């Protein structure tokens, strides 16, 4: 069994963006397998038929993980959002696990009094912290996550799915119908042992999301940039190998074009 693979689900233009993601990885000397569930051929990827996809809330990440990805012969699965760009080889991404069966970069503590933003996905911060604690999260800090990158051990897939599903049901009963991110934040903080070892501040060199658009309409270039804390708006200097270039979609589509050169239309 191989140690890990990257995977995603990408249709339409997102499939083309993921071709750019893979191309950037290969240019950095990353030769891990990239699996993609898609409606088209994605150059560089091992492609699987996606079938109809319910896109609401990105919950397909969890259902595909349980129903399809977990059948692949790898010890760990690394999800990438399709608008991702490698600026250098990240090395062994499993280093961030610290013994945990799951890793998402824990970004901001929703409980901080200095937070300027007061809610996450339309849920007040204090309420979100209360929901997490009522369902067993036992840390004083309650973190949010970005769902653009996560690592899961194959034997923890069903546990993660079940935790996420239980939390979704519980929160829905409390009047909050969440997308993938609060669910992943919950599963992560239930399973990771020491959440403080998984904060984005602990590893600024692997992955981060350029949600403020430092590289808007351009591609990350490997130079340091400012990651902005979603809640406090504090700026953190950062230079991760893998950038969730969520404000660079047009540039990613352009970067994908060489990957299609020579492919039959």
């Amino acid at each position, binding site marked *: 069994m191989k140690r890990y693979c990257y995977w995603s689900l990408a249709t339409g233009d997102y499939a083309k963006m993921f071709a750019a993601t893979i191309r950037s990885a290969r240019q950095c000397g990353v030769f891990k397998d990239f699996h993609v569930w898609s409606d088209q051929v994605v150059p560089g990827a091992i492609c699987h038929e996606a079938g109809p996809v319910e896109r609401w809330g990105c919950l397909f990440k969890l259902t595909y993980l349980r129903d399809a990805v977990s059948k692949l012969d790898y010890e760990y699965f690394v999800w990438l959002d399709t608008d991702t760009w490698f600026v250098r080889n990240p090395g062994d991404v499993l280093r961030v696990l610290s013994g945990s069966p799951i890793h998402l970069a824990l970004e901001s503590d929703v409980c901080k009094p200095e937070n300027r933003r007061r809610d996450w996905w339309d849920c007040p911060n204090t309420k979100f912290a209360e929901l997490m604690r009522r369902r067993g999260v036992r840390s004083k800090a309650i973190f949010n996550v970005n769902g653009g990158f996560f690592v899961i051990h194959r034997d923890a897939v069903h546990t993660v799915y079940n935790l996420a599903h239980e939390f979704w049901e519980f929160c829905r009963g409390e009047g909050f119908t969440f997308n993938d991110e609060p669910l992943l934040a919950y599963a992560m903080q239930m399973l990771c042992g*020491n959440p403080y070892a998984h904060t984005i501040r602990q590893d600024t060199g692997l992955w981060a999301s350029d949600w403020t658009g430092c590289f808007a309409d351009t591609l990350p270039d490997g130079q340091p940039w400012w990651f902005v804390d979603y809640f406090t708006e504090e700026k953190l200097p950062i230079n991760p190998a893998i950038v969730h270039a969520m404000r660079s979609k047009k540039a990613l589509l352009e970067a994908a074009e060489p990957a299609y050169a020579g492919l039959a239309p």
Partner: protein
Amino acid sequence: MSDPKPFVYVFGWPSHVGGADTKLAHLIPLLHQHCHLTVVPNERRHLQNKYWTRFLSRYGVRFAMLDELPARLEGYALSMANQCFFTHKIAHRAKERGLAVVWSSEMMWHHEGELEAVRAGVVDRVLYTSELQQAALGPGYGSIPGFVTGNFIDPADFPFLDRRRPEFAIGRLSRPAPEKYPEDFPVFYEALELPETRFRVMAWDDRLAKKFKWHRFDCRWDLLKAEQEHQVQFLHSLDLFIYPLGHNFTESWGRSTVEAMLTGAIPLVPPGHHLEQLVTHGETGFICADFMEYREHAHRLFTDYPLRSRMAKACHAHAEGRLCNRDEHIAAWLAAFRA
């Protein structure tokens, strides 16, 4: 003049495994001079178990199947977390013979058939291990008289050991119920980052192995089956009793924590359980509301031997003198029978 000692028919069987059966094993020596005790097992095979029949005889306790007892009885039918008591209508038959039914769930939930029996008027009194359990279960019992009788452990069975040895060990002892373990249990222990520390767990079974199959247990771990070591030997091997719990489970009392304290293993436990009433934070262990609190206190106890030694002795003294005070437990039980 009537005999002042109550007649108590205990429906169950003592054991060294399982909370309620272990509780019964300690209750018999506690109450045998104050009550006329008869133990009534669910199954006849128990009466062939020489270890426990000798144990009962030693304390002058009778044992028999219900059908072997007189058709009319006087006194109390006591049962603790005995699932068959209601599902097999044992409680109903005991009541028909004239006994007042005294029930103790021991858990934070109602057992199968329990509330139906309550509604049918079968149950005359209920016992609680703690106020926390009373708050959770009391509404289901309505106006039935209730008494908090706690959980007695004979301190003589869990002698104190002064620990000073090259190898440090943390661990836990509980029935092998997956819900008692937090989802991150093995990585939680390892993430404490205590140097050269052994991780010891009893009782481990296939269900727990399945729950944590994502983890690679290395040579630091001892995963022992139930009774693989004698309880006391196991607890003596631990310096710290670190007892994080699953998110769907509430500890109504915390027997293994008190057993650990009696032996001098220092408990680090979560809030939100009766454990908060057993451990005096900073004196006889720590209540930890965050991973970093577990980590900080575990490291402090690891590096500061005088503190560890002092706190271990305080644990024993508190458990023996306060939590397992024989006279107080006898008084609580007799109050429940005499009220």
